């Protein structure tokens, strides 16, 4: 953000809105950064000699004679191994007044990986949580969000997943994170002795909202450095993407764009896709896996943000409070990992796909039985057994506090089958029944 001597200083701003300023300038490139009255801004529109800049921290206090200096380049991040263990703000400046990072300066939001050069994701990421590993297995190079209500412990689950996932680097992109949550992440990582493999870019609720638009690109530029240059397995945590989308809506609104569904900009899909599609399995063995959080309002997934996200990501993990067991579970109906087919039954035991499906089908029968019960009807013997199964399934497998390996999960499921059902009711391929049925 240093001003260079030869740069021209403009001192006449024509228009100021809440988020943008417009002035007459020449030789300015699109997307270029500038400093306006000491605040960082980016070129968003050029019309003849009128240049419109988006001021990240808001335009409060700017004057028509504030100094404007163009930097001649788009936002960049200095990358090197020294990023590890450090905390940065949305501009990539060290928090807590630490030293600047020395390294190669890279443009953020750079080009996309040629799809033809990608590799098919095939490495399982074990988390110990059966709601994920058994039903919705995550694979390296995948992008998957948690859909959760604001009151659910999504940040805690995500921190757990990150630490168990055996990644070479974990990159945290915090957007609109409360200071408490930020300190929580810091503490969890510190306690696990994992700080040296963690890089954080954090915009807290105390910072201006528009700044958070830079966070995912910063985090992913760092991720690309470790994955592409160093061949490392990188896990990127983005929380909370709903607040990111809200910031997009603010900017689009201030730019007088016509909003589409739910007051979101028409380009929401492309904007989110640019971030999530950075998840990749590379030919050099490196990978970027993105686990994000999209908070919902009242569990509504038809809202434009979760809806567009669902179309981009490779599945979603749905957290729900299970009233029967009093636990937070990963909902087996609405959760999905699209890439699980690449590993289940191949990298895991052969019975994995069928066991997974049978569990969910029987759990659905239990849900129907529950509806019957609520409507005041008698339950059949099968219904009773399904309900008991559902309770145990929820407690022993779906609950997020479970931490066992996949073989144990499968064995647990077979035990539950034998306990509550006949072989026909489970309807699994005969060969598998013969081999694994726990009489």
């Amino acid at each position: 953000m240093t001003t260079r001597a030869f740069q021209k200083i403009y001192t006449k701003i024509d228009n100021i809105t809440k988020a943008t300023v417009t002035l007459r300038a020449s030789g300015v490139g699109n997307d270029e950064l500038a400093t306006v009255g000491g605040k960082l801004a980016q070129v968003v529109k050029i019309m003849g000699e009128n240049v419109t800049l988006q001021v990240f921290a808001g335009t409060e206090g700017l004057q028509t004679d504030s100094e404007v200096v163009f930097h001649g380049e788009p936002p960049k991040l200095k990358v090197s191994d020294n990023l590890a263990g450090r905390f940065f703000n949305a501009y990539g400046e060290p928090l807590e007044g630490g030293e600047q990072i020395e390294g190669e300066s890279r443009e953020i939001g750079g080009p996309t990986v040629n799809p033809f050069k990608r590799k098919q994701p095939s490495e399982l990421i074990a988390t110990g949580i059966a709601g994920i590993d058994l039903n919705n297995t995550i694979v390296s190079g995948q992008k998957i969000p948690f859909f959760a209500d604001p009151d659910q412990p999504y940040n805690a689950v995500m921190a757990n997943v990150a630490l168990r996932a055996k990644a070479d680097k974990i990159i945290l992109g915090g957007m609109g994170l409360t200071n408490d949550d930020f300190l929580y992440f810091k503490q969890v990582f510190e306690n696990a002795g994992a700080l040296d493999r963690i890089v954080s870019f954090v915009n807290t609720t105390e910072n201006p909202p528009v700044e958070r638009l830079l966070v995912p690109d910063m985090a992913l530029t760092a991720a690309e450095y470790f994955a592409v240059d160093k061949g490392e397995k990188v896990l990127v945590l983005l929380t909370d993407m709903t607040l990111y989308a809200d910031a997009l809506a603010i900017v689009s609104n201030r730019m007088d764009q016509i909003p589409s569904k739910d007051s979101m900009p028409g380009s929401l899909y492309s904007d989110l896709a640019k971030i999530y599609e950075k998840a990749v399995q590379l030919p050099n063995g490196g990978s970027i896996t993105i686990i994000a959080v999209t908070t919902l309002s009242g569990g509504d997934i038809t809202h434009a943000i979760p809806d567009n996200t669902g179309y981009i990501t490779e599945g979603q993990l749905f957290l729900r409070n299970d009233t029967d067991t009093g636990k937070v579970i990963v909902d087996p109906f609405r959760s999905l990992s699209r890439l699980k087919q690449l590993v289940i039954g191949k990298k895991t035991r052969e019975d994995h796909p069928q066991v997974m499906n049978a569990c969910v089908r029987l759990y659905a029968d239990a849900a129907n039985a529950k509806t019957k019960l609520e409507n005041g009807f008698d339950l059949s013997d099968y219904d009773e057994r399904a309900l008991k199964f559902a309770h145990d399934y929820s407690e022993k497998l779906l609950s997020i506090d479970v931490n066992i390996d996949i073989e144990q999960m499968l064995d647990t499921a077979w035990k539950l089958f034998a306990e509550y059902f006949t072989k026909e009711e489970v309807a699994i391929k005969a060969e598998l029944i013969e081999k694994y049925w726990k009489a």
Partner: protein
Amino acid sequence: MKTTGRVKGIIANIVIAQADGAVGQNEICFVHCGDTKMMAEVIKVIGDDAYVQVYDSTRGLKVGDKVEFEGHMLEATLAPGLLSRNYDGLQNDLEKMDGLFINRGSITEPIDFERLWDFKPLAAAGDKVTAASWLGEVQEQWVAHKIMVPFIMTGSYTVKSVAEAGQYKVTDTIAVVTDADGNDYDITMVQKWPVKQAVRCYDEKPRPYRVMETGVRAIDTFNPLAEGGTGFIPGPFGAGKTVLQHAISKQADADVIIIVACGERANEVVEIFAEFPELVDPRTGHKLMERTIIICNTSNMPVAAREASVYTGMTIGEYYRSMGLKVLVMADSTSRWAQALREMSNRLEELPGQDAFPMDLSAIISNFYSRAGLVRLNNGSTGSVTFLGTVSPAGGNLKEPVTESTKKAARCFYALSQGRADSKRYPAIDPIDSYSKYLEYPEIREYLDGHIEKDWVDLVYEGKTIVQRGKEANDQINILGDDGVPMEYHERFWKGELIDFVILQQDAFDEIDANCPLDRQKMMYKMVIDICHRDFEFNDFEECSQFFKSLINLFRQMNYSEWNSDKFNDYKGQIEKVVNDKAVK
């Protein structure tokens, strides 16, 4: 002299260029940014100002940068050597690009201009020809690739000479034709065609009268897709659109498959890249990749090229159709294309229609779907483009503009339902909401009479009724309780479930069940319908559900067994026994 211009304004990927000469609507131009040249298309002209959408990121572009206009619209290059290739939306060969990342302004040749092809003449001097007439052929993979009079040559010509059989490059002259005024035209094996215009070099476009087999029971048996027909698959995310599309692309009875990955996930395309070169087409014994062309504009690639990608795919489809081939074009998803239109319309500050989509969305979609079709070529043979698109309705709500507009244009509607997906009833094609208009076509009815058996369509409608009645019975049971309804309601419900589990549901990840040939579909369907015709007597509803559950279990094992194997026939015998024991004589 080409028209040139200077950049005057920049709003995201819309650039306003002041031109020094004539510019055409939809003309292609190149915007210079430093050393890179980015392709762009003119989408609006006001006075000297051309508004162009750049198919790339405009980062760093400055006022005063140079713009060169090319004098033609976006064109596809059509020549032997398109099969098995992986293109971006503008027909750049992705395989030929250097480096891990796609850098701005990357342009690669869509075909190999150096390769020699074994040419065989089909026409002779003196023949009268018109656009798309076959002059010769080369062997491309296992397809006899016809070399045609270029589509842009209107009027009729006389063949003056045709090259002898032998090896030629695509740019070599393989024929000379003469027009009515005596002017000679050299014809090579390569031609270009503006992608946004339909190729109409054929005799007529009759109503579709053949069925395209897909190996998916819920489609072939219940709602068949006609060869040369159109269909679309709307569904909320997670309902299995992509799995279904991949299944169809692997199994469909087509000569050429064009997959347009339009604004979707890159990993899905990678799956095709990884699997197709390995998988074998059961009909021909050739590798699937040999008949496949992938046009790939994934969601993070430039938005403007997304729109181009569907047109590029359709144009290549029409090209192969003109050779008398059966082409299947699939686009996943057309909603992303519509969204690209929305982004452009928004930046141009046009007055928006519903949900901020452009007003002419419906017209654009129906115009595009109308390019599919079975055609009778000028030489009497037939060729077809069958088009199947997916739609990703916002919030899973089928009342949104893209779904509604597509419903007006497409003849088959395969609605994927969230409820079915939630209970893992895959493919989640809703048996009640979905339809195929082709079942109403007398031509199709006649075809099915001949190819499956007489009055097959009536049998299909009967099955649909059973499913519908099963659902109604289920609603009653849910309202009145298991004991509150007569026994026959339970029986009715379970007969619907039987069709659902055995015919409609199919395991796309099981080697055998994934692809169900028409003969097998016929046999299974008739078995199931037969059981539905029988009357049973049960003491109570528990017995009824027990009976049908075990029946369904046997049928599922049968679906997992190899067709006509001992195991298969064993299960068949068991089913017959179970049914005969229980049925009222």
